[in-house]
């Protein structure tokens, strides 16, 4: 069996070794349902769609994805198991990808558990299921990008708390990249190209494109590229720490 798959299975199983996984899933479901029904006014809107549900995902993931990924490397460093892992005869990328896949699958499971909501809108009306499928895929990809970033940051420290805080901060920048809050700090000194580049990094913008059902492909490419880049960054982080 491939090393990537072995690492994936071990990591995925370890999410369920403690009640933390169950707590996480309950929190995610409660928050996403609560926000959809209470804040977005799911029933009052009178339209059968999941816009009010997906709207919250960037904000939820901003905190929840770092929480899933914070342990991936920090825990190994803390317990010393990283020494075992790194002296096994496998390539580093296999470990990095296996770990990320486990976290991504866990996020996928959390999303999968929200499908009763999808069924509900289909019972209540006739939503555009194409857009909903695209939104689910977009949401999962965005989760993957948050996770890959958080995993790379987790590789820097042996403190899960530190990994969580740093990953949330970085994720926040990515979510807010399209907002004036971030743009204005860049605008004063950077050329237009940089401003446009920063704006194009916005998770919120790309995710909106997907949930609106327009311009899906470039946004999908954006998230996939960011995942690949972050996984590469993760490999570099581990390699550089090894030589330090």
């Amino acid at each position, binding site marked *: 069996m491939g090393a990537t798959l072995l690492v994936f299975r071990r990591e995925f199983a370890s999410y369920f070794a403690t009640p933390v996984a169950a707590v996480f899933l309950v929190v995610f479901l409660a928050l996403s349902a609560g926000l959809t029904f209470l804040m977005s006014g799911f029933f009052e809107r009178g339209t059968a769609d999941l816009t009010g549900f997906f709207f919250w995902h960037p904000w939820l993931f901003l905190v929840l994805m770092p929480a899933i990924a914070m342990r991936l490397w920090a825990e190994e460093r803390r317990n010393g198991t990283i*020494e075992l892992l790194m*002296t*096994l005869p496998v390539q580093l990328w296999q470990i990095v990808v296996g770990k990320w896949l486990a976290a991504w699958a866990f996020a996928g499971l959390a999303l999968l558990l929200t499908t009763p909501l999808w069924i509900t809108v289909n019972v209540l009306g006739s939503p555009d299921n194409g857009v909903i499928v695209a939104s689910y895929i977009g949401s999962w990809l965005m989760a993957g990008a948050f996770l890959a970033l958080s995993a790379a940051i987790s590789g820097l420290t042996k403190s899960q708390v530190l990994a969580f805080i740093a990953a949330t901060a970085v994720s926040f920048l990515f979510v807010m990249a399209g907002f004036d809050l971030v743009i204005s700090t860049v605008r004063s000194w950077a050329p237009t190209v940089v401003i446009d580049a920063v704006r194009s990094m916005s998770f919120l913008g790309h995710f909106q494109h997907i949930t609106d059902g327009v311009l899906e492909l470039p946004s999908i490419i954006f998230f996939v590229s960011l995942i690949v880049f972050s996984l590469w960054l993760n490999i570099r982080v581990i390699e550089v720490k090894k030589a330090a």
Partner: protein
Amino acid sequence: MGLVEAQDLYKRFGSLTAVDGISFKVERGEVVGFLGPNGAGKSTAMKIISGFLAPTSGQAWIDGHNSHTDAIAARRKLGYLPEGAPAYADMSVGAYLGFVAGMHGMSKSQTRKRLAELVERVHLIDVWNQRIDSLSKGFKRRVGIAQALVHDPDVLILDEPTDGLDPNQKFEMRSLIRGIAPKKAIVISTHILEEVEAVCSRAIIIAKGQMLADATPAELLARSPDAGSIAVTLAVTDPQRAIEIISGEPGVARVAVAERLNGTTRLLVHTSKNQASASGLLGALGRHNIAADEFYLQRPTLDDVFRQITASRREH
């Protein structure tokens, strides 16, 4: 080329030089003990040789494979027990060893066969389905050893394999290491000196990152200031006459009063290169009607040698 080889290893962490020019070679059948006080650089050296840390300069090879530039090939030949015997706490013993076997590319049937052997050898049958975090220190250490042995590697690097074990477990662990030693090259680190005599064919003394000695335990013991000396306890408080008699014997270099206690005196007879015979001394005392309460060859201890070697270094 030896199964393990290190050449001019250096490792600096900022201004601290943790490993300061270590070179050695280990052949099949050897058990080499890394000996040194805590913080001497033993673990860092082992981390470099195993390929977990990159050296600042120098190189290490496992069975001819450079542990950094040819890391995967080197790791296939290596069983490594890191400091503190870490293991995935949330896994059962069986699942954990199965995971390690899989990572070594072993097939399901190979794994099953090998783990059945190991479970006997390392005595893990009673805890096979238990989570690792529920195990005692002794069992955790055994799981760590089993993990290092899963793929039957030619080279074993074990960082403090007996740390935290009770005397019985230590004895068992040492028998295990001795049992597998003939077919492998083994490096163990320890700060327990008796362990070196119990299992090692060679000892390397490290302090402050530097190698101070590389010799067999017997050679090290011979360096003791007490090596070959004889202790004589007499039932007198004034040993002057006895000292004169003993000093007159051939091969005696020096006689010192080691201890006076309850009307007895213990003399320590230093000999020049073990040339004074014990029976000669006994005979001489007997001829002068001096009865010895106790008479024994002073056994030099590695502790003395270790202190001597590390202390003399400090004066430089």
